[in-house]
């Protein structure tokens, strides 16, 4: 099981149905929306800092559970005082007045009347504000995404050929990389270059906040009350120079690195008349402005950000072309093709999209032994921009044989509530505040957490490999992990696919758009498929499916004493993962 974090909210109207959103992700999203001044930004990062204590109270008159997380909360017999927790730690970066105002914003953020004068309330309130909480609790939106502080970077439609999906994945990687730099710049100006969050499971304790003024690092130390996971520690690190990565440094200690954009951008797919549509969304930083009295949305910031993203997309497209010596040929039209538009009187040799470019593809490549997929080639001498780029990359990487994938939000196979949490509330009240009987509420923003869960599963199987220096620095290519790169955690998570977002244990069905499987003896052949249903990874002998992994699960309890590297080796050998 991968220990990841703590849940962010429940859905009151459905009797405590949990929403799939992680608490740090939630606070970072709210903070980003209100990142127009330092005080608001830090208030956003800390506004739910008492939630990981998971203090629920049954309110009979309101007929429901209340998740207490504001002042007055009792921890270990004493009442929590926000001034004590926040005041001292932020005094080096904020003035006395600013700290006072920040505490006021946190205390007040649940007051609906404060929606016009509290940026956090404005970000969260669905009626009079942006309603980011609504977006966290449903997949069916009443509002336009744009009105909720989200910008659509790319909307891909009508993709039909493996080369098309590969180009989408390439653009996604590039845009995400540069957006991370943009977020980093915004946050650095507000005094944050790194965010470190520690979840310490065991006894309950008031959270600790530390701010390193010299390096602009904010550290949040949460103490999550749990007897079942006593001694376990999960650390999240967010920054501008990191890629998503999971480390198990010692038993019960997991460190998860995130780029800012891992949380603040995400991909959603939805069916449309053009087949599946993929939207890459991102949070608009600082769209909500607070002048000390009133809250408003800043259209100028929004426009500036939109321009920045559009320039990033253009830059990424230019870099992709540069790396395969197609300098600038498709600057103007590539995005059109990604968005489902096509033009010209000719037909693409590969996908039959319309095109107006006659290009002779290297006969040597097409007809030599290297090109294995003759069936893809139809008659003609023209290609569309997407297939041209896909073809050139395939040629470039053919001998290297790396895997290439784009993780998609996972699906949920099952949800359970951790026993110690159930016992705590069941014994006291006869019912517990989380009711996952009917699963969890899936949400638009939760999709970024779900996408990261898929990413976590694939990164336990795959490792990034060195690539050619001629490729853009943001391209990430993979190979199956060698035994020396394995940790017990990877093998266990690979097999059981369970993620702890305390107090929920969620069994996931990882999903990804796989463009190439790679492998020692494989050529780099783009043959994109969306792994759906039970199949999680292809093997030359047999595919790895949920059903297959379920049968391996009994091994996990004994893995401590068993050589997990050898078990992984056996999986690679018997399923034929490298061939």
């Amino acid at each position: 099981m991968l220990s990841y974090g703590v849940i962010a909210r429940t859905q009151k109207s459905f009797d405590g149905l949990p929403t799939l959103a992680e608490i740090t992700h939630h606070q970072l999203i709210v903070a980003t929306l209100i990142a127009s001044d330092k005080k608001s930004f830090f208030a956003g990062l800390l506004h739910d800092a008492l939630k990981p204590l998971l203090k629920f109270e049954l309110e009979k008159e309101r007929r429901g559970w209340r998740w207490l997380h504001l002042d007055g909360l009792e921890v270990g017999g004493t009442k929590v005082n926000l001034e004590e927790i926040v005041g001292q730690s932020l005094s080096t970066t904020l003035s006395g007045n600013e700290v006072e105002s920040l505490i006021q914003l946190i205390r007040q953020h649940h007051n609906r009347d404060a929606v016009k004068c509290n940026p956090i309330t404005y970000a969260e309130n669905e009626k009079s504000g942006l309603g980011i909480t609504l977006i966290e609790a449903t997949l069916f939106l009443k509002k336009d995404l744009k009105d909720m502080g989200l910008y659509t970077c790319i909307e891909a439609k009508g993709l039909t050929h493996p080369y098309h999906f590969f180009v989408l994945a390439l653009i996604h990687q590039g845009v995400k990389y540069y957006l991370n730099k943009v977020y980093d710049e915004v946050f650095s100006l507000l005094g944050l270059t790194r965010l470190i969050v520690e979840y310490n499971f065991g006894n309950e304790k008031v959270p600790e906040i530390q701010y390193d003024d010299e390096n602009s690092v904010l550290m949040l130390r949460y103490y999550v009350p749990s007897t079942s996971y006593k001694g376990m520690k999960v650390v999240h690190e967010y920054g501008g120079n990191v890629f998503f990565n999971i480390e198990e440094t010692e038993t019960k200690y997991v460190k998860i690195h995130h780029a800012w954009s891992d949380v603040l951008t995400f991909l959603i797919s939805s069916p449309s008349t053009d087949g599946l549509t993929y939207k890459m969304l991102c949070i608009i930083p600082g769209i909500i402005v607070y002048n000390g009295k009133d809250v408003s949305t800043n259209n100028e910031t929004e426009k500036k950000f939109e321009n920045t993203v559009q320039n990033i997309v253009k830059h990424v497209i230019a870099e992709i072309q540069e790396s395969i010596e197609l300098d600038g040929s498709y600057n103007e039209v590539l995005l059109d093709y990604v968005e489902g538009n096509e033009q010209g009187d000719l037909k693409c040799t590969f996908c039959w999209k319309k095109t107006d470019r006659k290009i002779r593809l290297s006969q040597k490549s097409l007809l030599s032994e290297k090109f294995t997929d003759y069936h893809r080639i139809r008659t003609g001498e023209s290609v569309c921009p997407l297939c041209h780029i896909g073809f050139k990359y395939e040629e470039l990487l053919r001998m290297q044989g790396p895997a290439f994938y784009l993780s998609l939000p996972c699906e949920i196979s099952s949800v359970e509530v951790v026993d110690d949490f159930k016992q705590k509330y069941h014994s006291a009240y006869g019912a517990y505040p989380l009711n996952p009987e009917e699963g969890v509420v899936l949400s638009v923003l939760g999709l970024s957490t779900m996408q990261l869960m898929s990413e976590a599963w694939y990164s336990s199987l795959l490792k990034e490999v060195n690539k050619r220096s001629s490729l853009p620095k943001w391209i990430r290519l993979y190979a199956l992990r060698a035994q020396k790169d394995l940790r017990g955690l990877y093998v266990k998570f690979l097999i059981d696919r369970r993620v702890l977002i305390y107090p929920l244990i969620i069994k996931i069905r990882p999903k990804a758009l796989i463009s190439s499987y790679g492998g020692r003896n494989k050529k780099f052949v783009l043959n994109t498929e969306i792994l759906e249903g039970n199949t999680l990874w292809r093997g030359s002998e047999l595919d790895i499916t949920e059903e297959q992994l379920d049968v391996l699960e009994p091994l996990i309890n004994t893995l401590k004493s068993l050589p997990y590297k050898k078990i992984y080796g056996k999986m690679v050998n018997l399923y034929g993962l490298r061939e």
Partner: protein
Amino acid sequence: MASESNQDLDSLAMEFLRLVNDIVPWSKLSSEIIQDKWKILAKRVMASSGDDIQEFLHNIVKSIAGDSFYTTRGEKGKEEEKGKEERRRLGKDLEDYLKKVKSIGREKELIDYIKSRAIPLVIRLSAEGGES
């Protein structure tokens, strides 16, 4: 973990593979086969068939080792304790196993279960012997 309805099948499947592994005289086979023992076992289980569990077992063993097979096996712990080899009769084990399978009455389902999950079951078997 296997769902509750599959738990019975799962333990019967593991027992089945333990029996096959004991009956096949691995040490008498060529070194190439021994080296690739688990892969060969998994593949033969996937490729074999049978109208009932006994025929299924017979076909697997035959496809790996031809007509040679063990009828008895030494029991590890007991050998060391007593200093002499104590042997268990595989025929008796097989008979007991077949009775158990018949009593559960899901023979076809069991064969399908073993064939479709041969690889993970073999990986578990290899781990049991400390030879993973």
